[in-house]
């Protein structure tokens, strides 16, 4: 019963946050001084139009209704699953997002899993060997990557593998000028390798660094000292003491990294012109496609919050203290 209450509380909190994100995003977008007519139709074309045509355009881009009313209309439709029509793609926003999300999902999942597994492994390796060369190598790697913008790393990889060695394609998710049916799964994978690797490289650094810190804390504890005195091997200590104690922070990190990976994908997709959600966000932003921009913001926020929510629920499953004790803090 208590568990259910806890889950329900978190769920309500998540929905409230989501609603707040929608208000904030909508507010920001309405603040914009960019006139969608000027930006997309152009001054010259506007000048040569009749008033009637202009009015038609104005209602198409939604310039003539007050913001609060527009928000309520938009929110009502959104709850019903209708996110409006993308102005640039001239399709339903939900359709555009569905296509782009599927493209991105491969990248995101790949990077998420790799950075989680590899980050954890490297972090443990460094933490256990504190001060020795594996630790130093991991630290140098993590600190360097932490200071490197994802898009520059993407550019470097692009230069090395696509331009210089010519082993991987420069961009896009399928070969240019190929019919949709003849694109094989392998083609798609080949095009996703570079962006996915870039995202993983940046993701690993952060997780490894944080895991290392936790492992060091564990290794300095008295129960590990006692375990060593009992003659447990390093591997046994890792398995019996280290892993169990860093599981919770590792989970937090893993779910918190969703937000970062999505953010990174925006930059990386731009470099590789990979037609995913991130690139769509940039196109929507530069092209003043408000419905699409809002839709993407909501979907990514939903993914991030869902991740946090899942982490919270999983705590209850994994941590015996929460499982038995109910509410804490």
């Amino acid at each position: 019963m208590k568990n259910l209450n806890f889950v329900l509380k978190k769920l309500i909190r998540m929905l409230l946050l989501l609603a707040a994100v929608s208000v904030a995003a909508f507010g920001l977008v309405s603040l914009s001084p960019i006139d969608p007519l000027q930006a997309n139709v152009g001054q010259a074309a506007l000048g040569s139009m009749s008033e009637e045509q202009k009015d038609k355009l104005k209602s198409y881009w939604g310039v003539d209704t007050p913001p609060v009313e527009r928000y309520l209309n938009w929110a009502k439709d959104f709850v019903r699953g209708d996110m409006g029509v993308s102005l640039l793609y001239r399709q339903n926003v939900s359709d555009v997002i569905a296509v782009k999300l599927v493209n991105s999902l491969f990248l995101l999942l790949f990077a998420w899993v790799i950075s989680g597994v590899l980050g954890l492994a490297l972090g443990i390796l460094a933490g256990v060997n504190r001060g020795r060369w594996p630790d130093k190598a991991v630290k140098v790697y993590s600190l360097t990557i932490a200071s490197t913008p994802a898009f520059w790393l993407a550019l470097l990889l692009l230069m090395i593998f696509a331009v210089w060695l010519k082993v991987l394609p420069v961009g896009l998710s399928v070969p240019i000028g190929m019919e949709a049916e003849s694109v094989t799964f392998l083609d798609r994978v080949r095009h996703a390798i570079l962006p996915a690797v870039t995202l993983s490289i940046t993701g690993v650094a952060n997780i490894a660094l944080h895991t290392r810190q936790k492992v060091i804390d564990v290794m300095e504890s008295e129960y590990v000292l006692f375990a060593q005195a009992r003659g447990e091997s390093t591997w046994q200590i890792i398995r019996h003491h280290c892993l169990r104690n860093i599981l919770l922070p590792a989970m937090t990190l893993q779910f918190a990294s969703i937000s970062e990976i999505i953010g990174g994908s925006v930059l990386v997709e731009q470099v590789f012109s990979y037609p995913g959600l991130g690139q769509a966000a940039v196109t929507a932003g530069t092209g003043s496609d408000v419905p699409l921009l809002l839709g993407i913001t909501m979907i990514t926020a939903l993914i991030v919050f869902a991740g946090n929510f899942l982490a919270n629920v999983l705590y209850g499953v994994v941590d015996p203290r929460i499982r038995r004790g109910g509410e804490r803090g």
Partner: protein
Amino acid sequence: MKKRLCWNQRTKTLILLAVAVFYLAGVAVWGLVGRESALVTDFSRKNLTPSLSYLFGTDWLGRDMLARTVTGLSISIIIGVCAAAVSAVIAGLLGVAAATLGKKVDAVITWLIDLIMGIPHILLLILISFAAGKGLTGVILGVSLTHWTSLARVIRAEVLQLKESTYIRTAEKLGHSKWRIAKKHMLPHLIPQFLVGLVLLFPHAILHEASITFLGFGLSTEQPAIGVILSESMKYLVTGKWWLALFPGLMLVLTVMLFDLLGECLRKLTDPGSVHR
């Protein structure tokens, strides 16, 4: 540790600090002075690979990439400093407010932090820059309004902890005024935390500034910020002009790393647990 030369944390930090200040001043001055030369186009020296006279090479308009990179860095650094300072002040105010002004304010502020952290950072920057009508103001606003969250959390936690500590409670019982307690007992604790946070915010601010300008929000091509330079170079990479992207990016990475290290060193110095290592 035998006779190996081992600088302690304090010397290391001082050296880093000196290098950082020197570097900042150097880039800023050079960037301002060399601004003209960064925009000079000269078609007789188009697309030169890096050489002794043009260390970073030249681009497709014959502009000296070294001058462009330094000017770009100086723009990025100025934006980064402003943004980090604004963010730190917001973080300080909201962090202290959350910890001292009662439960309701605390709930609102922590909720706000969760809200901002829920939207991926880049996306939030895009939204803010869109709201400000793109251009320089959008970039500065975006970068300074989104970086305060983590530092605000740290400061809030610190003040909450301080409030419960024995010596502050004793001071309260002794009848000291709230203002006096805040000034004499809390500030000395908070200031180092705050300064370290400020230094650590700076590299983040620069990275995000570069990212958002790279995506095409913000500065025009006449203002060669690092992001703009790199995004321009993208079109020429496929033809093998690697130096256009390599060096400006490398300089950016070095700058960020320098301040990251400095911040870490300062953090270790202010943390009593690791100060003597």
